C-alpha cells in the first residue's frame, strides 16, 4: 500500500496503536483544504504536511505584515510585504517536497468556493471572519465534505468537527449572524497553534477512522486553566436550511 519512501518517512507514526499503513495510505491519497494560513491555518497546514497528506490546498489573500509574525509560523521576517500564501507554500515545500501544495491568493467567497474546494476530502476552516466560515460550511454540507471548524480568541479555542447529515453544522450552532462579536481578537501564537493541533488530530481521526473523532461535540480549549473539554452538542437542527442542502446519497 505504501511505497518504501513513505514507509520510512512515516515509520514513527505508523507505529501508533491503531494507526498503520492503511491509515497512512488514506492520508497520502487525501486532499485537505486549509482556508487562511495565519496563526491557526499555518500550523494546521504544517501538521498536515508532517502527517503526510498527499495534497494540501491553501487559500489566503494578501501580503505578510510585521504584526503577523507573533503567530504565523510559516512566514519569515524577510518576507514582509510578500504574498502570505506564496510564503506558506515555500515553507511547506521546503519541509516536505513529497506532497503537492495548491495555493490560491484569495479568501473564499461564494463566487470562488467551488473552484477552491474542488478535490478536497476534508476542510479546515481557520478564517477570521464569520462570512468565510459560513461559506465553507455551506459548501461542505452541500458537497458532503467533512469540515473541522477551528477558532480562537485570547487564551481560548474551539474545534468543531462537522459531518454533513450527522452533526450540527455551523448554521445549526449559529442560526443568526453573530451581531456583536469583535473582528479584532487578542492572540498569543502558542494558543492558536494549540487549537490548530487539536483540529488536525480530529481531522486525521475523521478521515482514517483512527480512534474516536469527537463527532457531535465541540472541543473547548482554555489555555488559561489549562483545560480541554468536550461539550456535547445538540442534534442537528432538522429545520436548518444549510443542512437541508445535503443531497441524499
Amino acid at each position, binding site marked *: 500500500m505504501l511505497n518504501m519512501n513513505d514507509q520510512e518517512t512515516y515509520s514513527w507514526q505508523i507505529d501508533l496503536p491503531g494507526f498503520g499503513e492503511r491509515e497512512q495510505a488514506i492520508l497520502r491519497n487525501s486532499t485537505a483544504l486549509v482556508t487562511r494560513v495565519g496563526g491557526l491555518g499555518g500550523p494546521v497546514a504544517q501538521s498536515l504536511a508532517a502527517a503526510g497528506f498527499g495534497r494540501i490546498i491553501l487559500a489566503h489573500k494578501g501580503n505578510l505584515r510585521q504584526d503577523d509574525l507573533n503567530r504565523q509560523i510559516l512566514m519569515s521576517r524577510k518576507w514582509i510585504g510578500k504574498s502570505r500564501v506564496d510564503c506558506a507554500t515555500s515553507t511547506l515545500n521546503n519541509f516536505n517536497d513529497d506532497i503537492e501544495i495548491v495555493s490560491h491568493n484569495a479568501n473564499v467567497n461564494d463566487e470562488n468556493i467551488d473552484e477552491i474546494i474542488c478535490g478536497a476530502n476534508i476542510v479546515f476552516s481557520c478564517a477570521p471572519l464569520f462570512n468565510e466560515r459560513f461559506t465553507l460550511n455551506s459548501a461542505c454540507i452541500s458537497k458532503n465534505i467533512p469540515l473541522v471548524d477551528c477558532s480562537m480568541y485570547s487564551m481560548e479555542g474551539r474545534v468543531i468537527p462537522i459531518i454533513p447529515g450527522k452533526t450540527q453544522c455551523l448554521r445549526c450552532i449559529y442560526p443568526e449572524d*453573530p451581531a*456583536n462579536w469583535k473582528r479584532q481578537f487578542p492572540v498569543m501564537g502558542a494558543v492558536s497553534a494549540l487549537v490548530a493541533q487539536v483540529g488536525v488530530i480530529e481531522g486525521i481521526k475523521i478521515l482514517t477512522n483512527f480512534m474516536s473523532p469527537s463527532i457531535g461535540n465541540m472541543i473547548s480549549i482554555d489555555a488559561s486553566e489549562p483545560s480541554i473539554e468536550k461539550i456535547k452538542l445538540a442534534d442537528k437542527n432538522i429545520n436548518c436550511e444549510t443542512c437541508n442542502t445535503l443531497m441524499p446519497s
Partner: protein
Amino acid sequence: MEIKVQYKGQLAAENDSSNEIINCEKPLSILELLNVILESKTPEFRKLIVNSDNVPTRSLLIVKDNVQVLDLRGTIIENDCQINLLPPIAGG
C-alpha cells in the same frame, strides 16, 4: 444550590472575572438565570446575551454541565451545576 457560571470569549473580556458563583434558594430555568446574571452587567456585556427585544441571542452557546442547552425555559436548574456561556468566536 450553587451555580458556577463561566464566561467565555468576549463575555470574559467584558466582565471583571471569567467566573461567577450564583447561589439560589429554589429551582430556576436557564432563562431566569440569564436575567439574574444581567441584573448587574454593563450594556456591552448585555448585548452579547440578549438582543434589543431582551430575547437571548441565538448565536450564544449555552452549556450546562458540558451539554448544550437549547430549551431555555424548559431546562430547570435544580442542583449544583456549571453553566458556560460561549459567545461566538472566529479568530483564525
